[in-house]
């Protein structure tokens, strides 16, 4: 029953049609929120007492690191769906999300590095958070490499899903090692449950730019998944009819 339900709502065809309709909304909302959040953050938010103006990198750095992890968790959910219910669409989505994840992880890493120069006096530290983000980046690339190594794409889908699911256990494990290592990194600025240690005048632009980046990445995901789905299903009738 549940399988039938999932399969009905996860046909690549209806996904492509639905996301094509949603795309304008996401891209407009995403870009306008990014412009709003970043203008606010860069030009209007007050200067940080300790770090001066260099902290303004936070409005790009923090959202990208958040999505670096969120995209991986999204992929892990898809991987489970693919392994348990054999949902093809889920595998397509993993394959299209992985490069985006790698890209945003890279942005997070390098913005953090540059931020480190004025604040810590060094662009790299063997700190647990930075290292785990670097490992996350390598994991994204590993997943893509694994998928590219097999000519039987259905086999590649399943192997990739297995790796993604195993990898998701790894992220909290590596994060836990923050406690084991002496860490240089400031504790996370925003926490979901407790009160934030950050002033509202900095928090709002940060939240806006985070949501904006999310929408932007979703619309990027819509584009890349569309091209991937079309190329994978090119022998299907609905694809020929659509084009």
């Amino acid at each position, binding site marked *: 029953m549940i399988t039938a339900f999932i399969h009905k709502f996860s046909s690549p065809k209806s996904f492509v049609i639905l996301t094509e309709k949603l795309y304008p909304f996401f891209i407009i909302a995403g870009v306008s929120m990014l412009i709003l959040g*970043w203008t606010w953050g*860069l*030009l*209007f*938010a*007050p*200067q940080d007492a300790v770090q*001066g*103006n*260099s902290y*303004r*990198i936070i409005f*790009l*750095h923090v959202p*990208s690191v958040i999505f670096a992890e969120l995209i991986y968790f999204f992929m892990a959910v898809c991987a489970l769906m693919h392994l348990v219910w054999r949902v093809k669409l889920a595998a397509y989505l993993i394959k299209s999300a992985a*490069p*985006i994840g790698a*890209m945003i992880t*890279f*942005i997070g890493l*390098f*913005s953090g590095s*540059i*931020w480190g*120069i*004025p604040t810590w006096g060094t662009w790299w530290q063997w700190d647990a958070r930075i290292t785990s983000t670097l490992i996350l980046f390598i994991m994204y690339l590993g997943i893509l490499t694994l998928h590219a190594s097999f000519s039987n794409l259905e086999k590649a889908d399943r192997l990739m899903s297995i790796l993604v699911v195993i990898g998701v256990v790894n992220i909290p494990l590596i994060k836990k090692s923050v406690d084991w290592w002496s860490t240089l990194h400031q504790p996370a600025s925003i926490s979901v449950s407790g009160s934030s240690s950050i002033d509202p*005048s900095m928090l709002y632009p940060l939240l806006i730019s985070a949501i904006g980046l999310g929408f*932007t990445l979703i619309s*990027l995901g819509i*584009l*890349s998944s*569309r*091209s*991937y789905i*079309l*190329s994978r299903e*090119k022998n299907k009738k609905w*694809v*020929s009819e659509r*084009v």
Partner: protein
Amino acid sequence: MFNSTFNNFNEILDMGGHGIYVWSVYLIGISIIAISFLIAKKRIKEVHKKIKLKNASS
């Protein structure tokens, strides 16, 4: 809250000596995202072309 922290354009660029870091991060970050969009759009075009070719030949 909505008063600009900066008085003129030069201050914005300079950001108290940290301008080079801040602006380079945003410049590079935005261009990476923009390039990804361009690549994704190009891919869709290529796939469409391929499928059209296939349709024409069959």
